[in-house]
């Protein structure tokens, strides 16, 4: 039996409560539902600073928290390159670089490879195939051997344009990818129309993958499943069991992932939310909070009565 690659999981966050909540949610999902990945080293890289309040809850989940410098770029998405610098990934290991707004619902080991970078194609491309060809000419790169099909729109583009929210990178490929990716981010930053550069990190990543010639394999959308999107409109077939759900800003008032539009996934997200609520120590239902309020009111009445009795 082949030896399973060892994953090292990393994510990058800002020093703000909503970001901490995402990291906490991600870590809780890994530890509780990750299967063989549940015991993987997990690194949270906070950009610029980290509120001391976050340290204990993350440490109790075995998360190693670090503070990193912002990546020198006008787009904050470029900070995710820090993941390719800090955590040490041993030989035979795989860096699992995740956005904070994803949750792990199953064992990840079956999706890992030590011989190729793996990622899911993006939902849609920010540029038409013609614009991609122009860009490739500008940077003097040749198109990919075969087109990449976007998950949502079905359009085909001549580059491995992947969603950078879930990247599986073999240890040996981390350094060459980071150097090339950083180079294209620097080259494109400010040099292209702003509407294209919303996804600067992903465009630069596609160019870096082409330029380095590192092997890239497409994962199905069950490895980076967009919970807000309606699968009725998706070009790709419905996925098998979802391993990683990407909820983006599709969250409720408590910051928990909202039920996805893909019905088979709803019970899984509800179960995860119950686990996260229990871990956070949130009241299990609104009635408990209401009854707490009743106790406070009763206590207030008792104090008032006691006060009157003392005065008498």
């Amino acid at each position, binding site marked *: 039996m082949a030896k399973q690659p060892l994953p090292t999981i990393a994510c990058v966050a800002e020093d703000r409560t909503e970001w901490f909540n995402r990291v906490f949610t991600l870590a*809780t999902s890994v*530890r*509780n*539902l*990750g*299967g*063989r*990945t*549940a*015991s*993987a*080293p*997990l690194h949270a890289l*906070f950009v*610029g*600073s*980290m509120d001391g309040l976050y*340290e204990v809850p*993350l*440490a*109790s*989940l*075995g998360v*190693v*928290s*670090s*503070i*990193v*410098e912002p990546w020198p770029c006008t787009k904050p998405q470029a900070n995710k390159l820090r993941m390719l610098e*800090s955590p040490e990934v041993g030989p035979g290991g795989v860096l699992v670089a995740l956005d904070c707004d994803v949750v792990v619902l199953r064992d990840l080991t079956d999706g890992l490879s030590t011989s190729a970078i793996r990622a899911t194609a993006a939902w849609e491309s920010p540029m038409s195939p013609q614009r991609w060809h122009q860009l490739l000419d500008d940077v003097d790169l040749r198109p990919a051997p075969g087109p990449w099909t976007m998950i949502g729109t079905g359009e085909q583009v001549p580059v491995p344009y992947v969603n950078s929210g879930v990247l599986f990178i073999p240890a040996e490929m981390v350094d060459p990818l980071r150097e090339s990716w950083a180079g294209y981010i620097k080259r494109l930053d400010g040099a292209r129309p702003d509407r294209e550069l919303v996804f600067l990190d992903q465009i630069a990543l596609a160019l870096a993958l082409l330029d380095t010639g590192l092997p890239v394999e497409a994962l199905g959308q069950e490895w980076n499943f967009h919970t807000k999107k309606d699968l009725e409109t998706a070009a790709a077939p419905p996925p098998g069991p979802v391993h990683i759900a990407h909820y983006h800003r599709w969250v409720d008032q408590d910051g928990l992932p909202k039920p996805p539009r893909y019905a088979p996934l709803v019970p899984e997200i509800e*179960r995860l939310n*119950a*686990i996260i*609520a*229990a*871990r956070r*120590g949130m009241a*299990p239902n609104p009635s*408990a909070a*209401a*009854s*707490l309020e*009743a*106790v406070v009111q009763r206590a207030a009445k008792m104090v008032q009565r006691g006060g009157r009795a003392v005065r008498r």
Partner: protein
Amino acid sequence: MADDISGVVNARPGQEAVTACVSENADSWSRMVLMLAVSVRNLGGSLAASPLRTYFVRGLAGPHRELLEQLGAEVVDVDPFPSPIPHANKLRMFQDHAARGPGTLIALDSDIVVLGDLAAEINPDALRGLSGGFSPFDDELWGTWLEARGLSRPSARFRMQRTGRLVPVPYLCSGVLLVPKKFCKALADSWAAQVLALVEAFDAPPGSGAGPALPPDARFFTDQLALTCALVETGIPVDPLPVGCNFRPGLDHLGLTGIGHVHPLKAVHYHRWGLRADGFIKPAQFLPLNADLERVNRLTAAHLGVPYRPVLRPGSPTDMAGLRRAPAAIGRRAVVAVRRTAPVLRERSPWPRSAR
């Protein structure tokens, strides 16, 4: 140039660890193991990111296996240890770890939940465990038994947690043991031999000449008595753990140690009688524990997909009545606990009786 702000905020303890427990293949046992696994992954600090092995005597099937595997626990099927003492089954985890990869074995009873980072307590040069509550053998019997086994009496003495007495042997509670890899094989081999010798002596008819007569009540503690003999035989250094690493949530324990000595709490040994009828952990008399116990209960319920009735539901008439009764009940229990512990505290006082 701006100062470099980068750096690790919380480093992992340097010691590699493997957490393990041995369980029977029964629903009530696998439920306890599930709670243990939930606690390790959610509150165990660096243990949350370390291997977790759950050994099941005669295997484990069904939904609990799947739930444990989701939590990243390796489920290992083992045969029972050939002894009439079920506690001796825990030897399986030491035998298996001795033959496997690296790391200090954090060997836990199934009826324990982890609330902190036990890996930070690892001593790479010693076995760590909490001194027992009391020794089932008195000093004289220890001397006779060690002599019968051809073992010499250790020079150090160990204080028992509950009675406060000093005993001439390292008698430990076997519920939480931190055993560096280099000691696992020797310990497992010797412990197994000592279990069998003790069972033979306990079961021998009186006057059969099979060694000194052993008190029948002590038979329940065979695994711990055998552990003591194994530690004496192998000469493995023993470094006692603090109370909070194998905390029995009773007021008597607190009376003995003092609250200041309990923190930080890293593992709670609730024992089987500490479970509610619905399989969740009862609230502890040491109130600061309850938020974490409640958290473990709720997490377990979420994993199982079953409803959970919290211990305290403020506002419900039943619980309010219970709360009103509570101060009186706690007062009564405190008196009992103080009465029990006062003689011990007197004995443990560093000052001579005349100076008090």
